C-alpha cells in the first residue's frame, strides 16, 4: 500500500497496464518531455520510450482522429486532451466517429481507446479550463464516461478502462488531483465500470454525486446531524441505477450534486430515472445542486459558481423539510 494522490494513482495505473500490454500507447500535448501540464504522465516517456509516449502538435481533432485509426488497427491509444474545454475541436472525431464505429461497422471494427481529460473547476482557471461536459458525452450512444473521486477508485477504474474494448472518456477532476491522499494497493486491481460506490450509509436521505463534488458532499454530511447515504456514481455512463434506486427506495429522499450547469446536466437523467423507479417511495421531489446555466466565470467568482458543502447542506435541509 502507498499513501498517494490521484495524480500518482493514475500514473501508477498507466505504468502497470503499459507493462502488461504492449499495445497501449500514450499521446498528447506536452505529455512526453514535460510529463503533461498536470504532470500525470511524468517519467513515462523515459520509462517506456518515445515510441510509446509521445508529444503531439496542438491539434485535438488530429490527436483523437489519429487515435481512432490506431485503435481500429489494433492498438489501445490513450490520448490526453489537456483541458476539457479543448475537447471542442475533437468533438466531431469523438461523437461522429469513435462513438459510432462499432455500430456503423456492425461490430467489424471497434475503437478501444481511453481519452484522459482533466475536468472541472476549482483551480482558479477560466472558462474552457474549468468546465464539466460529462453529460454531453453521456448523451452520445457508444461512449463510456468515467469520473473517479478518489485515488483508489482512479487506479482501479483506469485499469478497467485500459482493458475496455470500446472508447472511454476518463475525466480526472483536477480540483482533487493533489488535494487528497489515500492508501492505494501497489498491486494491480480493477474496479468494474458501471458500478457505483456507497461512500457512507444512511437512512434519511440519499445524495448522488460524482467527481470532485463527492468531496463537497462528504463535508456537508459531516456537518449534518441526519443519517445520509452518499452514492458516488463513478461511471456516468453506463450508470448504476440499481444502486441509486435501492438507496432512494430506502430513504425516500434524494439530492443530486454536480458541477456542470443544471439544465440537462446528468442530474436531470438521475432525477427522471428516480421518478420512474421510486415514485411511490418518494417523500419529496428530487433536489439538484449544480452549477448555473452560465459560462464558467473567472476565478474571483468561481466559488460562487461551484456547488459547495454549504449549498449541499441547504438542499439536504430543504429536501428533509418538504
Amino acid at each position, binding site marked *: 500500500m502507498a499513501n498517494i494522490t490521484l495524480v500518482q494513482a493514475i500514473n501508477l495505473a498507466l505504468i502497470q497496464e503499459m507493462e502488461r500490454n504492449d499495445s497501449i500507447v500514450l499521446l498528447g*500535448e*506536452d505529455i512526453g*518531455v*514535460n510529463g503533461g*501540464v498536470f504532470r500525470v504522465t511524468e517519467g513515462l516517456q523515459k520509462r517506456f520510450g518515445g515510441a510509446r509516449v509521445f*508529444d*503531439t*502538435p*496542438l*491539434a485535438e*481533432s*488530429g490527436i483523437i482522429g489519429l487515435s481512432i485509426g490506431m485503435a481500429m488497427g489494433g492498438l489501445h491509444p490513450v490520448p490526453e486532451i489537456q483541458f476539457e*474545454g*479543448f475537447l*471542442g*475541436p475533437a468533438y466531431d472525431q469523438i461523437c461522429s466517429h469513435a462513438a459510432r464505429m462499432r455500430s456503423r461497422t456492425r461490430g467489424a471494427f471497434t475503437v478501444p481507446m481511453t481519452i484522459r481529460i482533466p475536468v472541472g473547476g476549482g*483551480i*482558479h*482557471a*477560466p*472558462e*474552457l*479550463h474549468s468546465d464539466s461536459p460529462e453529460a454531453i458525452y453521456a448523451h452520445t450512444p457508444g461512449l463510456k464516461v468515467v469520473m473517479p473521486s478518489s485515488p483508489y477508485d482512479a487506479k482501479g477504474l483506469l485499469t478497467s478502462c485500459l482493458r475496455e474494448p470500446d472508447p472511454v472518456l476518463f475525466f480526472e477532476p483536477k480540483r482533487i488531483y493533489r488535494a487528497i491522499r489515500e492508501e492505494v494497493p501497489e498491486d494491480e486491481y480493477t474496479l468494474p465500470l458501471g458500478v457505483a460506490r456507497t461512500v457512507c450509509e444512511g437512512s434519511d436521505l440519499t445524495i448522488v454525486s460524482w467527481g470532485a463534488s463527492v468531496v463537497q458532499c462528504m463535508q456537508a454530511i459531516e456537518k449534518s446531524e441526519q443519517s445520509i447515504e452518499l452514492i458516488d456514481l463513478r461511471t456516468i455512463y453506463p450508470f448504476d441505477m440499481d444502486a441509486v434506486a435501492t438507496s432512494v427506495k430506502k430513504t425516500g429522499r434524494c*439530492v443530486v450534486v454536480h458541477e456542470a*450547469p*443544471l*439544465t440537462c446536466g446528468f442530474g436531470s437523467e438521475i432525477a427522471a430515472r428516480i421518478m420512474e423507479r421510486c415514485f411511490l417511495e418518494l417523500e419529496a*421531489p428530487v*433536489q*439538484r*445542486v*449544480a452549477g*448555473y*446555466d*452560465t*459560462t464558467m*466565470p*473567472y*476565478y*474571483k*467568482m468561481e*466559488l*460562487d*459558481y461551484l456547488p459547495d458543502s*454549504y*449549498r449541499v447542506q*441547504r*438542499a439536504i435541509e*430543504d*429536501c428533509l423539510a418538504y
Partner: protein
Amino acid sequence: MKDPTVPMSHVATPAVHAASAGASTLPVPPATALHWLRQMHLIREFEVRCMQSYQEKKIGGFCHVYIGQEAIAVGCVAALRPEDPIVLAYRDHGHALARGMTANACMAEMFGRVDGCAKGKGGSMHMFDRPNNLFGGHGIVGAQTPLGAGLAFGTKYEDEVINGGKNSRVTLSFLGDGAVNQGAFSEAMNLSGLFDLPVIFIVENNGYSMGTSIQRGTTMSHDLCIKGRAHGLREATIDGMDVLSVYRDMKELADWCREHSRAAFVNMTCYRFKGHSMSDPRKYRTREEEATHESNDPIINLERALWQAGVFDDAILASILKSVREEVKESIAFASASEVTPDRELYTDVFVEPWGPYPGSSLPAFLGGATNACTFRSTNGKEGLV
C-alpha cells in the same frame, strides 16, 4: 484567377534600417520611434508587474506574459489604421496595450475586477476592446484564426457591397506557431485565399508550442511560409525582435493587402523570454539558449538605434521608465480598488436579456428551474445575488 505576376516573396522597401545600417537617420520620425519605445517599456513593465501580482495571488488562473515579443504588437499596430480589426490568441496583454486599452482596464481584468475590459469575468486570456477594434484574446489554440477571416469578410462587404466603394481595411489575425497545426487555421487560410479576404495571418513564431519546439511539432518549420503559399497567400518572414523591421515590413504588406484585397501569411520570428505560462518549468529548453536570445532584446535593439540616430540619451530613458512605472503602479492601485465582480454578474451576458424576459420558460429562473434555493452566500464579502 489571381495575377500570377504578383511576387509571392516579400521584398522590403529600401528605407534605411537604422539598427543594422548604423546610420544617423531613422526610418520614422524620432518622436514616433520614441513613442514605440515607451509602448514597449509599458508592456514590459506591465508584464513584470503581472508576474509579481500572480505570485502574490492577486491574479489567478492563467497568465501568459509577452516579455520578449513586445516589438511585434507595437510595430504591427503602428502599421495599421485604427479602424483595422485585430483578433488574437491568449498571449494578449501586449496587443491590448499597444492598441490603446488603458493599463487600468487591462490590469483590472487580470485581477478579476468589475472595471476590467471583460468585467473581470475573463482574465488574462480575454482582452476585448470594442472602441479600439480589438476583437479579443481567445483561449482555444487556433480557434480565433477563422474569426480573422470573417472580420475581413465583414469589412470588405461593408466597403464594397453596402457602400459601393473599394475595400479600405485590413484585418490582423495573430496566432502562435503551435496554432499553425490546428485544422481551423488551414480552413481559415483556404477561405481567405478563396474569397480574397484582406486578412494577414501573423504567426508569432517564438519557436515553442507550449513545451514542444517547432522542429518537433511542425512539418516544414524551416520554411514555414509554405503553409500560406499552399493557399495562395502572399508571404513574408519578418524579424519580430526589431520594431523598425516589423513596422517597415508590416506597413508595406498591410497597405498591399488593403489595396489589392488579398490575404497574407507572416512568419514573425521571435522568442518568448519567459515560460509559456506562470507554471512552466521550462524543461524543454536550456538556460544557455534563453541567454542567447535575451541578448537580442527588442527594447535594447530600439534603444541602440535611437542612440545611433543621436536622438536618445539617459535622461530620455529615465523619463520613459519613470512614466511607465507610474502608469503601471497606478493600474495596480486602480485594479486593487475596483470592486470584485459581484456574483449577480454570474448570470448576465449569457443572452442579451440579463435575467430573461420569458415568464413561464426555464430562462427567467435564476436557478435554472432548481427547486433548492441556492445559498447566495457572500464569498466576496458583498451582498448576495437576490
